[in-house]
């Protein structure tokens, strides 16, 4: 195999493993690499954005719209109400929900903390009961929600695991009984309140939980 062959092989391997291709000169294989990308994108189920991504980007945009003056000087306007349940919005996009429903979702008042109440919801099993014994924090991703379930004061509870600052996914630290933000020096305790730190942050929304035989279920947006 020539050097160019090995480069193109590595490019193909990366795409099939769903990784970023390595940095390397493309030379004459630029078009072949693009054919590879096009073909890979045609595999079943490949080209739909994940609800978690749609949700996180919505939060980033909202943050930018709130804090960057360029947004208000430009013509594009904000909605009269802040976006409410962004995870629900992500679910609506994924499910292709009609415009009327989206308007309802978008005009819900912004929540700070509170409990997530999806307007179309389903109970989804996210952990075995044995995964949430005291001292453990179990991460899950379901219905567009990134969350954690754990036991606190003898009760099973759920919290959003998306930092209320810029939407980074929080990392559980079971030993310290907290969720730590990977982006900034901030953490949340298991009641969802931000620990004192460099930022003043809204609390994490709670997620409803229930036990169904030996599974822990959470109430999340239903999407197909």
């Amino acid at each position, binding site marked *: *195999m020539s050097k160019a062959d090995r480069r*193109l*092989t590595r490019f*193909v391997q*990366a*795409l*099939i493993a*769903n*990784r*970023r*291709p390595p*940095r*390397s*000169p*493309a*030379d004459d294989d*630029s*078009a*072949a*690499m*693009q*054919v590879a*990308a*096009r*073909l*890979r*994108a*045609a*595999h*079943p189920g*490949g*080209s*739909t954005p*994940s609800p978690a*991504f*749609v949700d996180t*980007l*919505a939060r*980033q*945009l909202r943050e930018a*719209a709130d804090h*960057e003056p*360029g*947004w208000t000087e*430009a*013509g*594009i*306007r*904000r*909605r*009269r*109400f*802040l976006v409410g349940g962004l995870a629900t*919005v992500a679910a*609506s*996009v994924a499910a292709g929900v009609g415009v009327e429903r*989206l308007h309802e979702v*978008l005009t819900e*008042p*912004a929540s700070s903390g509170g409990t997530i109440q999806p307007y179309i919801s389903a109970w989804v099993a996210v952990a075995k009961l044995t995964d949430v014994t005291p001292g453990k924090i179990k991460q899950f991703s379901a219905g567009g929600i990134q969350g954690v379930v754990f036991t606190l004061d003898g009760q099973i509870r759920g919290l959003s695991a998306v930092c209320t600052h810029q939407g980074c996914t929080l990392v559980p630290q079971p030993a310290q009984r907290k969720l730590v933000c990977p982006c900034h020096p901030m953490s949340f305790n298991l009641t969802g309140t931000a620990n004192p730190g460099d930022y003043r942050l809204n609390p994490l929304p709670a997620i409803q939980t229930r036990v169904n035989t030996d599974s822990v279920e959470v109430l999340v947006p239903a999407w197909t």
Partner: protein
Amino acid sequence: MAVPETSPPLRVVGAPERANDWESVYQEHVAPLYRFVYSRTGNTPDAEDVTSTTFLRALPRLRSDVSPGEIHAYLRTTARSVLADVWRQRHGTVLMEFDDQRDSTQPAEQQDEVDVSPILDSLPANYRSVLEFRFLRGYSIRETAAAMGVSVANAKVLQLRALRRAAATGARDVQS
């Protein structure tokens, strides 16, 4: 919390109602734009990065009175420029979209679909097979070789030849 709107912009009487708040634009365009970007990157990490950068760059510059078609076009143009940046940084060459012109001759609603049948149909049967096994079904080289009844070394070479042939065919189509 609720921010009252200032007076609405002047609008031509009889013009269709346009509510270009960024949330609506995002709602409407995130999935199709992602699909467009994914079909040019072929992997999730790049597709998510490029989609994010595109929206963060394009949304603040959108005027409120532009038409849906213009929004679509502006997002595509921005995405192409972000894709070109990523390509240049990673592969050191200018990105030439190999079948861009063929795309633009399709009806708008079809452009969001990742339809690779024109690529595959133009190829000899064994080239088509190796690409289907590898890319559409995600088979490993070993599985592909077994499915096609060829050696592993043969399957490795075959996939590269098939990609290069498809690339050359696409380039010819653009010129014709």
